[in-house]
């Protein structure tokens, strides 16, 4: 165990820190509270800048535009991004989940074709996994693809597709063999969202925004060369994406959580509760300390997981505890913010009395989705129970 930075890690940190100092846009605060639809071009331009500096996906191999950075350097990357109050990037799913899957399963031609444009945010990616009747039971999905004259013809419907409204390409899981067991007949296709027959509809969520979409596919033709991995091996390809999602996505969220808890500490000194600052209210003080502790433990769990992945080579089912931990922690943190803010907690963005441009009312509502998206807490517990602890499969 050695949590000191190695000389390589120090050099990496210093180089990135210096780059950030020169390049982080100064006007991010003006954009922060705006809906994603409005700020998206801004985030795209910011990612382009990171790409030009060689910082868009540091952990990817050099030959694909990364820096072959270690997972620890990746953790440093996110800490520096947070420290510099840098905006997030635009192509989150492409960079975090789909790019790594293409690097692991793609042909050379696919890597050459897709990876550079994921990095530059020239092509935004979305993920077509869930369906109306295949949520937690993902393998039950029904969207089908039939091979006709060198093209897969896709018919079906996907739902909860993040970035669907802005997506240029989609990592789509389809059924290619209905005759075999449900996990065995799936294939992953890389689908051009501009293909005829693709229809994207907004899905308005409880926050009021349309972060997600429904996507309809009617006789959409996908060339055979856009199969990712092997035909009928799509379950393994999809699981690889999901493990990235569960295992490493927390590192990306950690800076946001840290900023939120630090902001709550700041607020606790000025907000009055029971005739004194909230920071001095015995109950709120205890809850705030608990939140600080849990955000730190989220960081430590992530570092331990990275060390384990570095040793074993791939994220494993243990990653489910990161997802469980951060999603439930965020709900507690948002609830604490509400308790501290009292009546002001409910005020939405746009109200002149809203605290911090309404990020707390939004965050409170948005956090309900955390324990559902990317595998519900119940599914994560099933994964831990069966794949980590070796208990019999319950479903």
């Amino acid at each position, binding site marked *: *165990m*050695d*949590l*000191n*930075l*190695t000389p390589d*890690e120090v050099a990496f940190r210093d180089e990135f820190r210096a780059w950030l100092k020169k390049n982080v846009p100064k006007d991010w605060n003006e954009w922060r509270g705006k809906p994603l639809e409005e700020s998206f071009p801004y985030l795209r331009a910011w990612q382009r800048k990171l790409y030009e500096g060689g910082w868009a996906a540091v952990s990817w191999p050099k030959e694909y535009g990364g820096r072959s950075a270690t997972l*620890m350097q990746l*953790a*440093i990357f996110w800490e520096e991004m947070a420290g510099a109050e840098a905006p997030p990037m635009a192509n989150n799913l492409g960079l975090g989940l789909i790019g790594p899957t293409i690097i692991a399963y793609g042909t050379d031609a696919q890597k050459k074709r897709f990876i550079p444009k994921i990095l530059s945010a020239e092509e935004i990616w979305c993920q077509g996994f869930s369906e109306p009747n295949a949520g937690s039971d993902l393998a039950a999905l029904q969207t089908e693809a039939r091979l006709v004259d060198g093209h897969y013809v896709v018919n079906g419907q996907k739902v909860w597709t993040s970035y669907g409204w802005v997506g240029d390409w989609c990592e789509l899981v389809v059924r290619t063999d209905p005759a075999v067991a449900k996990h065995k007949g799936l294939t992953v296709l890389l689908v051009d969202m501009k293909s005829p027959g693709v229809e994207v509809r907004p899905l308005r969520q409880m926050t009021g925004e349309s972060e997600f979409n429904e996507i309809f596919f009617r006789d959409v033709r996908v060339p055979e060369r856009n199969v990712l991995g092997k035909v009928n091996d799509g379950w393994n390809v999809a699981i690889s994406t999901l493990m990235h999602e569960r295992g490493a996505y927390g590192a990306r969220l950690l800076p946001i959580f840290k900023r939120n808890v630090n902001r709550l*500490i700041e607020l*606790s*000194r000025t907000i009055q509760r029971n005739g004194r600052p909230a*920071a001095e209210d015995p109950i709120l*003080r*205890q809850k*705030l*300390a*608990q939140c*600080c*502790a*849990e955000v*730190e*433990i989220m960081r*430590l*769990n992530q*570092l*331990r997981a*990275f*060390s*384990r992945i*570095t*040793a074993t080579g791939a994220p494993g089912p*243990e990653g489910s*505890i990161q997802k*469980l*931990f951060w999603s439930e922690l965020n709900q507690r943190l948002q609830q604490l913010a509400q308790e501290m803010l009292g009546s002001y907690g409910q005020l939405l963005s746009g109200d002149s009395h809203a605290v911090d441009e309404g990020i707390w009312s939004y965050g409170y509502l948005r956090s309900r989705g955390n324990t559902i998206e990317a595998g519900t807490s*119940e599914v*994560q*517990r*099933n994964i*831990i*129970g*069966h794949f*980590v*602890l*070796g*208990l*019999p*499969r*319950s*479903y």
Partner: protein
Amino acid sequence: MQFGLNESQEFLRGSARKFFAGECPIAEVRRLMETDTGFDAKLWVKLAEQGYTGIIFPEEFGGVGFGVVELILLMEEAGRALVPGPFFSTVVLAGSVLDSLASRDQKKKYLGPICRGEARSTVAFLEVGGSWDPNDVRLTAVNGKLRGEKRFVSDAAAAHWIIVVAQNGVFLVDAKAPGIRIQPMLGMDLTRKLYSVQFDDAPAEKLGETANSSRALDIATTALAAEMVGGMQRTLDITVEYAKTRKQFGKPIGIFQAVQHQCADMYLETESSRSAVYYAAWALQQHAPDAAAAVSIAKLYTSDASRTVGNRGIQVHGGMGFTWENDLHLYYRRAKASETAFGDATFHRERLARLAIDAEAVSAQKA
């Protein structure tokens, strides 16, 4: 940066696990918990032969010279085996205080015999009020003599020396000295015996200033949390094994999600505690600026989690978990005693708040 164990740390953990499984199986724990002190001379000799009684002390006093990380790996294994007797009190608690406060001559005199397995000791901290805040300590030495009462002193009856945290310094007294009366307190944990100790003008030797004992207490707190992690891991292992074999409705109960999810939460709580404890140990070893906060984070999380893990484990066991014959309650009892020792979650949340929330503290840190 690397959060995994290195080869020698893996080796230490593996050999400790084997040692405790062989020398201190649960039948032996049950035998010793029925004795007055829980102390076993034969086991103690073997602990010393392994170098465990001197694990983090400098070689010049007969120790092995390992760091805090190695200490907590050993304590995790001791916790898994529920090792009874004065090992924690002597080596971790008294040993750390001696190591950080005592003069070179005092270390030679007291730490040497501890390393060699010839002497046992403990630390007396709590008083009538039961507060873990050093500012609440009232007992005071006058002219080199102690008068007053300490409570919840672990393993005092097995100790040769009792180290006393007083208002005006940390003192060492001979447990056999005139004016000392040791009386058992009947604690829930049957494997680590508690005592009240009365001092009636007992002659005492000063080791150092009370204000300088915080690092030693932080090391002891972290080592105790590591022992708790070992207990949680064992509780989880026993429970998962039971859920795989116990059948109801014709199926192993572990197939039911209501049961399986309890086990998944036990895993999350155990792993998260381990992350916090390992980091605290490393931060102490490195004298990192956030070490005190890291210790409080480890103890506050582990205090709540070890209780919860025990609750879940017993619930999954059903009626069996409520029996004397099942081992779970032995871990459950230890967990409760350890939860409050050196401050429970509420205490450490307040300590963390002072470090991380109070404006003066935060700006002082930044400066």
